[in-house]
C-alpha cells in the first residue's frame, strides 16, 4: 500500500493504474451471495462452467465479459428467473428458489408499464411490496427527484427519452429497496453522454446507500468506473477468468489515465482468452480453494504479457 503512495510521491508513474487492480482479497464473514460450482447448459451449449463467486453485503460487483460468457445467465440465476443445471446459489445462506423480494432485477430495457405514468409505475411496484397507498405515494414522491425527474411525475413512459426511462426504472428499483440489486447491462442502449451521466448518478446513489449490487456489462470501462470488484468472464464455456478488486478512488472518471490503462489490460486479457479458445481455468482442478485461486490469478497476472495482442499499446 505505502509503496503505491511512495510511487505517487516520487516522480511520474511509469505504469498508470499499477496496484489499482489486485486479485480479490478474501473477506471475513459470511457472504451475502454465495455462488458455488454453478454450471448451466442450454442443450449442448455450456453457458456456465464451475463458477464460484462470493459477494459480500455492500459490494458493487461487475461481471464483465464478451457475449456468450454466461454473465447474463448467471445474473438471471441469481434473480431466480432461471435454475442453473448444477451447483448452488444462496443468499444469506438460503438457497435461491425463484424470484424473491430480497432481489430486484434491473433490465436492459426500461421495462416500465406503458399505461402508467412515472409516478404510477413507482406506486404500483411499491403497492405490490405491500406498502399502503399513502406510504407508496410518499415514497414515490421521494425517489423521483433522486433521479432528477421532478416535473415528469405525470408523464407517460413513451413521452420520455430513453435515458429518462432508464432513470425511472432505476428510481423504481431503488424505491423498492431490495437487499440486492441485479443489473443486466442497464445502460447498454443509451448514448455515451447519457450513459456517463447515469454512471455518475449510480455511483452517487451507491456511495450513499452502499447497496449490494451485481452489475453485468460487456463494457470493461463501465465495469471499472462502477465496480468495487470486477469479475472477468470468458466464453465457451462461460467461466470466471479473474476476480479482481478495483482500488481506484471514487468518484471515478472514465477518462482517467489509470482507469483507461487498466481497461486496456483487461481487454487484452479477454482477447488472449478468446484467442486461446481452450478453457484456461480447466487446467487447474475445479475444486480450488479461494486462496489457491487467488494465487493462481496473481501468478497469471504476474507473467510478462509481451505476446498479448495489446491493441491499445500499439496505437
Amino acid at each position, binding site marked *: 500500500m505505502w509503496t503505491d503512495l511512495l510511487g505517487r510521491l516520487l516522480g511520474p508513474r511509469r505504469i498508470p493504474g499499477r496496484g489499482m487492480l489486485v486479485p480479490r482479497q478474501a473477506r471475513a464473514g459470511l457472504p451475502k451471495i454465495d455462488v458455488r460450482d454453478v454450471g448451466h447448459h442450454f442443450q449442448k451449449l455450456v453457458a456456465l462452467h464451475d463458477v464460484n463467486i462470493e459477494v459480500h453485503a455492500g459490494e458493487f460487483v461487475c461481471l464483465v465479459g464478451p457475449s456468450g460468457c454466461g454473465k447474463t445467465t448467471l445474473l438471471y440465476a441469481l*434473480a431466480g*428467473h432461471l435454475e442453473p443445471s448444477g451447483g448452488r446459489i444462496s443468499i444469506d445462506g438460503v438457497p435461491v428458489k425463484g*424470484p*424473491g*423480494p430480497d*432481489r*430486484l*432485477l434491473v*433490465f436492459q*430495457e426500461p*421495462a*416500465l*408499464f*406503458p*399505461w402508467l405514468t412515472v409516478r404510477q409505475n413507482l406506486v*404500483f*411496484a411499491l*403497492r*405490490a*411490496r405491500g406498502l399502503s397507498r399513502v406510504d407508496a405515494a410518499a415514497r414515490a414522491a421521494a425517489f423521483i427527484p433522486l433521479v432528477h425527474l421532478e416535473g415528469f411525475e405525470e408523464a*407517460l*413512459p*413513451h*413521452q420520455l427519452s430513453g435515458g429518462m426511462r432508464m432513470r425511472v426504472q432505476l428510481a*423504481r428499483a431503488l424505491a*423498492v429497496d431490495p437487499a440486492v440489486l441485479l443489473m443486466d447491462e442497464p445502460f447498454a442502449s443509451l448514448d455515451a453522454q447519457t450513459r456517463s451521466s447515469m454512471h455518475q448518478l449510480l455511483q452517487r446513489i451507491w456511495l450513499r446507500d452502499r447497496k449490494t449490487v451485481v452489475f453485468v456489462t460487456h463494457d470493461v470501462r463501465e465495469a471499472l468506473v462502477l465496480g468495487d470488484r470486477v469479475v472477468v468472464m470468458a466464453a465457451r464455456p462461460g467461466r470466471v477468468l479473474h476476480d479482481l478488486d478495483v482500488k481506484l478512488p471514487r468518484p471515478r472518471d472514465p477518462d482517467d489515465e489509470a482507469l483507461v490503462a487498466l481497461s486496456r489490460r483487461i481487454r487484452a486479457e479477454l482477447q488472449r482468452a478468446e484467442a486461446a479458445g481452450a478453457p484456461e481455468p480447466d487446467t487447474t482442478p475445479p475444486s480450488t480453494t479461494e486462496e489457491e485461486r487467488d494465487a493462481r490469478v496473481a501468478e497469471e497476472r504476474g507473467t510478462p504479457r509481451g505476446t498479448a495482442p495489446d491493441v491499445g499499446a500499439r496505437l
Partner: protein
Amino acid sequence: MGPLLTWELVSRYGPWPHYLFPGPVAVAASVGRMLADGRLAAAAARSLGRLVQGYALSVTVGVPLGVALARSAAVRRAIRPIVLGLQALPSICWLPLAILWFGLSEPAILFVVVMGSLLAVAIATEDAVAGVDPVLLRAAGTLGVRGPRFHLGVLLPAALPGILTGLKLGWSFAWRALMAGELLFVAGGLGQLLQNGREVLDAAQVMGVMVAIVAIGMTVDRVLFRILELRVRRRWGLLEATA
C-alpha cells in the same frame, strides 16, 4: 350525393316496379313514419337490449377464457381444439339447438348471440395475452407482482390494445348473429321489423330498417370502438405522436 341520385333515378325510370325497388325518398319517408309511430325506436331498443345482454355475457366469459387459454398449457390442450372448431361454425347454426334447449324464448336468442361472439373474444384475448411483451412479465416477476394484482394490473392492461380488437370483432359477430336470429325467430326487434316489411310487401320499410341496422352498426363500430381504441393506443404510446 351521386349514388343517391342514381338510386332515385333508377328506381323511378328503371325496369323494376317502384314498390319493389323504392328510391331513397320513399325509404326516407318510410323511416320517418317508423320513427314517428315509435316502431323503429321500440324495435331498436329491443334488439340493442338483447345485444348488450348477450355481448356482456360473451365478454365476461370470453376474456377470462382467453387469458386461461394463453396462460395455461393444460387449458389450451383441453379446450383449444374445441374452441377453434366451433369458431368455424356460423353462429346461426346454433339456433335449432337453442330452440330445442330453451324453447322459443329470449334465452334461445341470447344463446345464439353469445355463441356468435364468445369464441371470437376468447381467441383474440388469447392472442393478445400471448403477445404481451415478455419484458413486462419479467418486470412484474422481479417486482413480486402476482395474483389478482398481476392479472388485473399487468396482464390485462398489457394485452388491452389486442383485446379491444377482439371486443370489436366480437361485437360485430354478435350483431350479425342477433339479426340472423331475429329474422328466423320472430320475437320483436329490428329483425322482425324487417320480416314485417316483407309480409306486407313494403320494400321501403325493409330498406329503411336495413339503413337503420347499418347506422347502428357503424355508430358502435366507427364511433364507440374507434374512440376507445384511439384513447388506449394513445395512452399506451402505440400511436405516432401527432404533434
